[in-house]
Every structure is written in C-alpha cells, then in structure tokens.
C-alpha cells in the first residue's frame, strides 16, 4: 500500500479520504487556500501546505503548484476527490509525468468521458442505450433549429463539457431554443472553456438512476448496485438513496449489466459511475459517466459495507478486486441529504459565519462534514457544507431516521436548506418512492406558496 498520499481537494471529501488513510496507516498531505487555513481537514492531515489565494483558479486548480507540493512532501499518489481537478485529464497526465499515481482512471478515459458528445458516441458503440439526439457539436442557432426539427420538441439543450447543470436548459419550442442557445453556449465557454452544444430528446417523468462500478487494472469490473438521485434543484442533486425504490429487479439487473459493459468497452479502472435517465416504463438511457468518486458514494457504502476510498487506493496500487458481483451485499436502505448553505426558498447561496453547530446522532446515522462552530462559509466554493446519511433495515425506517436527524441538526448563523430537506423527506410523494427530477418544481415549490 502507499505510505503517503496528497489530497487535492477540500472540505468534507478531503476529510473523508483522510479518515480511510488513517485507518490504513497512510500519511496524508492536505493542500489548502488562504480561505481554508482554519479548516478541520487541514488540521487532521499529517502535513498541510497553502497553495494560494481563495479563488479556485489561484489555489485548488493550480495543478503545477499542487504537483510541486506532492513531490516535495514525497507523496506517492494524489487523490483528487470530486469536482475541482478530479476530471481534469491534463492534471492526471501531469501527475503521471511527475511519477505520481493519480487515483482514478487513465487521462485518456477521463478526456473521452469529459466530452458528453464523445461519451454518447462511445456508449452507442458499446451497445448501451443513449437518448435520441445528435452526436455532433452545434455551431449556430440555425444548425440547432434544423437538428431540433428532426428530433422534435421538447428537448434538452446541453453543453458537451458541462457539469453541475451549467449550460443545460429544457426547451419546449423553436422560440425557446433560439432564446436559450447563445446564452448557454457563452456560459459553457466561460465556465468550461468549451462552447460545444448538443441536443437530446426530453424524457418525460425522468428518474435519475446511476450505477456505481469498481474496476481494477486486471480487467475485472464489479457493479455495486445503483443509487436513485432524482431529487434535484438547479439540476444538482439534493437527496440520494440506495437502492432505487422505483426500478424492478429485471430493470436493475439490465442496468448493472449495461454499466459493466460500458466499463469493459472503454477499459475503465478505479471507481466510476454511469448515470442513466429512466423513463416511466423503466426504459433506461445513458446520460454521462463520472470518472471519479461521487458526492453520494456513502449510500452505496452503507448498503454494501464497502469502503470505496479504500477500494480506490487498492486499485490504484495495482491490486485485484477481492470480490465478485455475486459477493456484493445489498443490505437495507440508505438515504443521503446534502446540506447546502443556501436560502431554502430561492436556493441562493448564504455564506457567513456559523455561530452554533451540532451534528445529530442516532442509530444508522452518519455525518460527512468538515465544519464546526465558528467556521466561516466563504463565497469561493460550492455551497455544500455537509452530508447527512441514514441507514435503516427498510426504506421506511431510513426515511424516519433521516427526518429525525434533520430535525436535530443544529446550525445557526447562516441559512441552510434543512427546512426544505425536512419537507422533502416527509412528503407523501417521496415516501411513496416515486420521485422524478421534477420533484422540487411539482411538489416542493407549490408547498411554499400554499402554506403562506
């Protein structure tokens, strides 16, 4: 096993990786920006180095400085976490060139899945169903209009390099498409440096369901069941659970097969997630592949009993997976909610100082969190400040546990989405197990106006 690794990330995920390293006796090196100097993950790491000013492009995205720190501190490998440099093929390549193991798949695979248009083509070749749409970049409104006529409205306009819901919009008519095209293209150019746009047919009542896989460097791929992540706001996930309460065993088995086929086809290694949209008839279509650890990986850990970070480290050092598909447990039900520093009605961020803070405890409750009383939530990074996970022997018990825990989550000084999460996990539609990506629009937002 490695003796020392650098974690090129911050917040709860940096702390999560440190925890597994401590368990395995691996030394950890944290990097941080000036804004995070007082953070728990900086204190918990064996060594910590400041790599620049608060804006991400001057610190957490400063690949050269991070690699310099890794080499100087004699780390052998780099764990990129999620977001930031985790799906940056150039960074992964630079790590390799500097003799560092990048804990993730090869740079070529990261690049091929990073372009949604390329990924669509590759998955089609692999025999994985994709949503009807176009597989070339649309250069102009005119081109988009012609392509849209062929497929038919409603459509999703998407940025090929997009992520986090940026550069993505539902369009119901030619008029809406023409209005949306230039703005989203520009947004994609400024956020991702790539303005390539494409169109996919809109699936009605879509469920977002994804399959977690682990693949070693010896050609073994094992699926670790699925997660349902349909409840989203601003096209970002808010509630995730495993297993999906929606799909039947036949669909589940087909989706897991498709994910394994996809991973084999591209020669994938390490942890990865294949995201699908599932329609109301349980037809499923490839959406994208995330070539890293996901925010919501704890729900998979809760039902399988595996430590995904540990598995990532083992794969990165060249070990074979120690289990087969048949060996992987599916025990009980786990639900995760993301705690965001934001207004629960408008979803606008709410930075500030946390004056009081106490995490809930209880049977089956797990917290992934890297803040404490006195922490400053700065405007520089993602508004997610923690994750709360509840496991129960049944979905009903998991729902009850997470609701109780949310009611006992004590955080003062900033606004959070906790009131929204409580309303969500106690809503009859959520309890029924039929949730689509329209949940917030259809069930949560109307609740706000009707209770006034």
């Amino acid at each position, binding site marked *: 096993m490695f003796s020392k690794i650098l974690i090129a990330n911050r917040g709860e995920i940096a702390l999560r990786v440190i925890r597994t390293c401590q368990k395995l006796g691996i030394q950890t090196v944290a990097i941080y920006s000036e804004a995070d100097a007082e953070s728990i993950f900086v204190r918990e790491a064996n060594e910590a180095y400041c790599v620049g000013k608060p804006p991400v492009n001057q610190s957490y995205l400063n690949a050269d400085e991070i690699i310099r720190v890794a080499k100087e501190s004699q780390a052998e490998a780099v764990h990129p976490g999620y977001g930031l440099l985790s799906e940056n093929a150039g960074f992964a390549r630079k790590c390799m060139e500097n003799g560092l193991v990048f804990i993730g798949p090869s740079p070529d695979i990261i690049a091929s899945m990073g372009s949604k248009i390329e990924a669509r083509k590759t998955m089609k070749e692999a025999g994985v169903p994709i949503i009807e749409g176009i597989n070339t970049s649309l250069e102009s409104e005119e081109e988009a209009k012609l392509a849209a006529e062929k497929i038919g409205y409603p459509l999703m306009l998407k940025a090929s390099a997009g992520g986090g819901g940026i550069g993505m919009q539902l369009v119901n008519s030619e008029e809406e498409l023409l209005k949306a095209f230039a703005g989203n293209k520009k*947004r994609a150019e400024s956020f991702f440096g790539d303005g390539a746009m494409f169109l996919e047919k809109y699936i009605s009542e879509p469920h977002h369901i994804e399959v977690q896989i682990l693949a070693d460097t010896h050609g073994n791929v094992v699926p670790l069941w699925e997660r349902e992540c349909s409840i989203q706001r601003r096209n970002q996930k808010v509630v995730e659970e495993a297993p999906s309460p929606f799909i039947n065993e036949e669909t589940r088995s087909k989706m897991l097969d498709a994910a394994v086929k996809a991973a084999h086809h591209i020669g994938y290694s390490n942890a990865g997630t294949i995201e699908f949209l599932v329609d109301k008839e349980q037809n499923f279509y490839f959406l994208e592949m995330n070539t890293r650890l996901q925010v919501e990986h704890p729900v998979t850990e809760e039902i399988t009993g595996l430590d995904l970070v540990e598995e990532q480290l083992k794969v990165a050092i060249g070990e074979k997976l120690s289990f087969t598909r048949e060996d992987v447990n599916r025990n009980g039900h786990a639900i995760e909610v993301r705690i965001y*520093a*934001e207004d629960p009605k408008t979803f*606008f*961020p709410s930075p500030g100082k946390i004056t009081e803070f106490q995490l809930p405890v209880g049977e089956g409750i797990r917290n992934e969190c890297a803040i404490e009383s006195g922490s400053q939530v700065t*405007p520089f*990074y*993602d508004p997610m400040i923690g994750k709360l996970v509840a496991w129960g022997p049944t979905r009903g018990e998991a729902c009850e546990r997470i609701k109780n825990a949310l009611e006992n989550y004590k955080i003062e000084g900033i606004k959070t989405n906790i009131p929204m999460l409580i309303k969500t996990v106690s809503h009859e539609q959520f309890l029924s197990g039929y949730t689509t990506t329209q949940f917030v629009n259809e069930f949560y937002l109307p609740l706000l106006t009707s209770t006034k």
Partner: protein
Amino acid sequence: MAKIEAGMAGNVWKVLVKEGDQVTAGQEVVILESMKMEIPVSVEADGTVTKVHVQEGDFVNDSDIIVDVE
C-alpha cells in the same frame, strides 16, 4: 439617486451596463458569481447609469455599491 448594492459576497462575473446607459426597473446590470452560482443584480427603478464601480473579475462584499443609477 439609487445606489445598487451587491446582495452577497462574490466575484463580478459580467457587467451588463456602462455609464450613460438607460435602464428600466427589473433590468439586470451586473451578474455576480458566488459558490458556483450566477446571481443577477437588477435595478429597482428606471433611470440612467451614472457610475459603474466594479469591473469583471473584481471581488465584492455583501452590500458593496456596484452601480449608481439616477
């Protein structure tokens, strides 16, 4: 004269107006970027932009004045 303030701390992502521009109530004048989200700042009443206090890329704090409108 109205002084348009930033509603929260963040980076100035886009400045949509310049001095002398006519603006109408509700019009977006600046887009801030905070915590990976775009936050538009708009004017509350019709008027003329008399001064723009920020440039794209600047960092502003909550309630910093970003645009004057008369």
